[in-house]
Structures are given as structure tokens and as C-alpha cells.
């Protein structure tokens, strides 16, 4: 597997995460949270229809209601994920974790601050995210507000060993074939 050559030799645990990984994690989180919201809305609509015994078109709800539901859902998704585990689903898949700036575990208060500041990072064409690309500690606006940073939480060296270990199964040598 050629990808094994791209894995750095030292373990990455605790190192500042880069912009590509964080952006990928955010994209996954957006998809997961969107799908989850759609499933929940559909499920709730079905339950309400069963209770009131008439058709409810959730898509016809006023835009303000939809926006409020979306914001509340996103707030809960990120706040609960960060305060409970220090990571969202996307971050877990990419091997990332949110910690305090000094490396200590994230607490509820700083998770709340980070979640509340998160939308403001999107303002002015995402100006709040520039720090992830150019900063030495790769901190966005919401990281600065919440006194947090994002680090790698997976052992790159162990992963490389697993990849190397998997290779004989894929490409049997003449001795093992």
C-alpha cells in the first residue's frame, strides 16, 4: 500500500492538527449532522402525524422555524460532542481531538465558549478560519475564544505498522504463496 509511505514515522498524538484534516472532519460533521437532522425531522413528523392524524409537511414550515431548529440542532451536536468526548463524529474518524491550549482536557465551559464562537468564524468569508492555515498553533477564531486547540489523536506509527502488517495479505511473496 503506497499510502504507508506517506505516514510520518513518529506518533502524531498531541501534535497540532493541520487545515486539510480539520476541513475534512468538518465536512463529515456537516454531512452527519445534516443527515441526522433530516432523519429526526422525518421521524418526528411521522410521530406527530400519527398523534394528530393529519398530514404535516415539514418542508412547508416557515423559514425562521427551520433556521432555529437547524441552529439548535447544530449547537447541540457540537456542544455535546465536544464537552462529552472532546471530538465530533468527523473528528473521531479523522483522528482529531479538541483540547485546551495547554493540552489539558476540554471542560464544559470552554466547550460552550467554543461552540458559541464557532458560527462567527464563518463571517467575512470565513476569515476566522485563516488562523488554522497560517498560525503556528493552527487555531481558528473559535479556538482563541474558547482557549482551545485541535490535535491529532491517533498513533501514526501504529497505523503504519498496521498498514505494513496488512501488506503480506494483499501481496503474497513467493515464499508465502
Amino acid at each position, binding site marked *: *500500500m503506497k*499510502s*504507508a509511505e*506517506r*505516514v*510520518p514515522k*513518529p506518533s*502524531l*498524538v*498531541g*501534535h*497540532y*492538527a*493541520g*487545515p*486539510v*484534516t480539520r476541513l*475534512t472532519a468538518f465536512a463529515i460533521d456537516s454531512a452527519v449532522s445534516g443527515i441526522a437532522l433530516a432523519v429526526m425531522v422525518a421521524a418526528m413528523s411521522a410521530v406527530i402525524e400519527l398523534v394528530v392524524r393529519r398530514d404535516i409537511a415539514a418542508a412547508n414550515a416557515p423559514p425562521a422555524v427551520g433556521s432555529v431548529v437547524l441552529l439548535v440542532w447544530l449547537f447541540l451536536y457540537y456542544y455535546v460532542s465536544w464537552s462529552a468526548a472532546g471530538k465530533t463524529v468527523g473528528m473521531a*474518524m*479523522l*483522528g482529531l481531538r479538541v*483540547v*485546551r*491550549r*495547554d*493540552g*489539558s482536557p476540554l471542560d464544559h465551559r470552554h466547550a460552550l465558549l467554543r461552540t458559541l464562537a464557532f458560527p462567527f468564524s464563518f463571517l467575512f468569508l470565513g476569515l476566522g478560519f485563516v488562523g488554522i*492555515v*497560517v498560525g*503556528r*498553533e493552527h487555531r481558528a477564531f473559535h479556538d482563541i475564544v474558547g482557549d482551545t*486547540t485541535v*490535535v*491529532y489523536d*491517533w498513533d*501514526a506509527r501504529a*497505523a*503504519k*505498522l*498496521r*498498514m*505494513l*502488517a*496488512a*501488506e*503480506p*495479505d494483499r501481496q503474497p511473496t513467493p515464499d508465502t504463496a
Partner: protein
Amino acid sequence: MAEKRRSPFDRAMSLLPVDAVVRQVDVQHIVERIDMNELLERVDVDKLLDRIDIDRLLARIDIDALVDRVDVDALVDKIDIDKIIDKVDFDEVIDRIDMNHLVSRVDVNGILSEVDIDSVLERVDVEHLIARTELGGILVRSTTGIAERGFDFVRAQGVGLDQLLNRWVDRILRRDSSEAPAGPPLLVDAGEKGLPR
């Protein structure tokens, strides 16, 4: 009657004061005139040694005092060790060694307690070992599934791209990549720098 039978020489010798003559002899002068080498050549050494009681002689020797007077270092310096080793048939020596007995006398635990296992393991190329042995397959079966390997693949790609982007940003901003901190102080060792960019 017996006096009559003695020769004139004997009678003359009996008249000489032998003791007085001997007293006058310079023994030291005689000894100095003796050729010792010629004398020794005429001695039958084997016959002489046969008459010597070696055991009794050795019993009278103070071996410790003798050894104390020997300069062992000087003696060893004169010995040509290489020459001796050349003469030794090591195969025969090894054949005569009871290896089981020898090994049973070795304190393996004592030796292992002095071994720095960490430094030994650091010298082991684990990646090469896993790539060449069935240990890899065992590791894969016991620790990961297909999903985990998929995540490893995606994460590795992401880290590679992170490094690439960081390298370009540092180049554009003309920063020294080696000065970048690796991570928060509580999570990385002091002085540890970021990944090679």
C-alpha cells in the same frame, strides 16, 4: 714384619706432616683454577639426579615466597600468546566442554537484569520485522478491522496533505519550519518540534 713390607714411598709419606701441609694450601686459589665447564661436562647429571630426593627437596621450598619474587607481568610479556593459541586445537577443547553443565551455571536472570531492554528494542527495526514475518497478519487480525484500516488510510492522506500545505505556507511567509511547535506543552515533550515539513 708389616713395617718391613711398606714401600719406601709409603714410609716417606708417613714422615710428612700432612696436616701442616693442608693448612698451607690456598683452597681458594685452587678453586679459581678449576675449569667448571669442563668439570660439569664430566659429571653424569642423570646419575646425580637419580640420587636426589626431589620430593624432599620440594618440601623444603617456600612456594609462596618464590611466587612473590616472580614478576608475573614481565613473565607474561615474554610469552608469545599468538604462538600458543596457534597450537591449541579449539575444536577439541570445545568438544571436551560439557555445555549443558556450563549453561546450567550461568545466571541468566542476573544477566538479563543488567540488559537495557529499551535500548535493545530501539535498535530493532520493528517495521522490517513485521513486514517480513507472519506477526503482521496476527497484528491485523487481532487489532484492526477493515474500517480501522480505512480510517488509517484516510488519516494518513490527511496528514500528508496537512504537511504539504504547511510547507507551502511556511515558504510563502518565509518562516523557519523547524521552529514550529509540535503541540500543546502538556501533550508533547519540551523542545519537540513539529513534523518535518
